[in-house]
Structure formats: C-alpha cells, structure tokens
C-alpha cells in the first residue's frame, strides 16, 4: 500500500511539475516573442538604433530563459535560437530574416510544450 501511495504521490508531483514547467516555458516564450515583434516593428519604422538596443535586451531575456530551460528541455532545441540571438546582439542593424526566423523558432518552442495532438504524436 505504501508503494501505491508513493507512486501516486510521485505521479501527481510529475503532473504538477510538467504543467508548471510547460506554463513557465510558454509564458517566457510569449514574452520573448513579444520582444521580437517589437524589434520587427521598430525595424519597419526604420528606427535601427532603437531596434539594436531592443535586440540587446532581447538577448538578455533569452539568456535568462535559456539558463533554466536547459534543465527542462533538450539542448538541441535551444542552440539554434541561441546562435540567432547572439548574432542579432552583435549586429548594429538587426537582420530582418534572422528576426523572423527567431520568431518562428520561438513559436515552435512555445507550442512544443503545450500538449496537443501534433506535439504528442
């Protein structure tokens, strides 16, 4: 009976942890996506210096997220965004194709943590 109770407790803890981590990843990704969209809109107005500044804070935000996310998800899923982020941070004028690629990869990362038919199967 102790084993059954212990197993039930572990399973419940795993469910809670997975829901919390999924929600955390999703919300942090949404914030970074919003940041990316802001950089894209600044670029469309031609404000490149503000866009570059925003890219630096975007990179900082990503770095904070990545630090904890590397404990929860496969590193291969983070390295592509990592590479793009460091490139955007280094550029004086952010590249629009890189920004949209980053937006796309972040959206995939966000959706992968939400259990849907496609993410499960």
């Amino acid at each position, binding site marked *: 009976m102790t*084993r*059954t109770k*212990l*197993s*039930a407790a572990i399973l419940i803890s*795993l469910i809670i942890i997975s829901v919390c981590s999924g929600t955390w990843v999703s919300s942090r990704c949404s914030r970074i996506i919003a940041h990316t969209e802001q950089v894209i809109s600044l670029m469309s107005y031609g404000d490149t210096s503000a866009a570059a500044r925003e890219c630096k804070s975007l990179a900082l935000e990503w770095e904070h997220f990545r630090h904890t996310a590397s*404990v*929860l998800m*496969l*590193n291969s899923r983070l390295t592509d965004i990592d590479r793009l982020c460091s490139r955007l941070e280094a550029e004086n004028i952010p590249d629009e194709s890189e920004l949209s690629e980053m937006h796309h990869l972040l959206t995939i990362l966000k959706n992968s943590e939400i259990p849907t038919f496609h993410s499960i199967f």
Partner: protein
Amino acid sequence: MSVILIRSLILYMLVVFAVRLMGKRQLGELQPSELVITILVSNIATLPLENVDIPVIVGITPILSLVCFEVLVSRLCLKFPKMRSLISGSPKVIISGGKLDPKALRELRFSVDDLMMALRNKDVFDLSEVQFAVVETTGSVSVMKKQTEDNPTRSDLGLSPENADPPQVVISDGQVSQQGSEILKNAGISLKKAAGGLPPDKVFFLAADSQGNICLVPEGGLHSDKN
C-alpha cells in the same frame, strides 16, 4: 568527465529506487508488463548518460512515470481479476489427468522439446510421471507428479513433524543481530552461553533456532554444533 560521473550517480540512485519501488515481485520471475518496464527503464537510463546534451530530468521523468504506472496498474490488477488476465494473461493447463493437451501446446507455441526441458528443470524426466502441468503467466511450468511417482511426505510415513522455524543468524563476523538475539531470548539461552563463553567479537558465525539448536563458528574457524 565529472558531469558524466555525477549524472551516473544520480541515475544509478534513480534506477535502484525505481527497482525498489516496483517491489520484490520484480526480483523474481517477471510478468509481461514488468519485463517491458525493466527493458524500457534500462534503455531510458542510458540516454542522459551517453549524451550530456540531454537533461537528466528528461531521463528521470519517463523512468519515474513508467515505474509509478506499473505499481498502480499492478495494484489495480490485484483488485480487478479481469484486468489482471488482460495484462498478465492467465495460466494455461497443458497436462491434465496425466494427458498432454497438444492443442494448448500449439496455442502457447510450446514445442515438445520446450516442454521436456521445462519438465527436466523440475526434476521430471519421464512425461508419464506427470499428473498435472500448468504454464504460468511468467512462462514457467508448474508440475504436479502422479501420486504413485511422488516422494512420500512425513505424514505418509507417520513421522511426527518438527515445527521449528529455520535458524537465524545471531552473530555474523562479530556483529550481533537484533532478530537473532530475540530468537535466543525466546529459547531461554543467554548470548554468552550460546557463544560458548566467547565475546561476540571473537565469534565469526553463530546461528540459533527457536528450539535452542545452535551452530557456532569461532573466529579461528573451528565449527561446532551443540544443543
């Protein structure tokens, strides 16, 4: 390198915990679901060890969840016999009334050689000695010999049975065990007397049963039995 070492330690502890959680049943013969879980757990545990890019939690989560599912399912199987037969199958009679059932053998995909091997493992070398045989859900064969071929029991021979539990270890390598001391206490023998006057650290092995039978091996190694 140190990362792999620490990961190995974490996963070792996790797998030991997982096997302990599955219980003693796991250490004996495996049910089909237990076999599947054992194979899966051993495979999953190697993934974060081989590849440091895979977080340990990616290995921990499926191992723990699979083992917990197994424990809960086995609990449910205990409560619902239909579920038990669905998951573990049911025992199949292959010899009944001393007669072999070839249809049951074919259904189990058991050849006559397999059957003879299983019978030999049970110290039965002649099929005609078997009264009843069942293939258990674990795949092992349980055999009941014909009464004419079976060994006589104490009651058959009219001998009075000895209702004594097997001996318990009282001192092992100088260390006194609590359980063994209680056996001695119940038998009304002091530890000093049982050890032949030797202090516990001079005793290599001492065992006693509830009837007061003692087996003493001093540190020097000379074996002695006394009642």
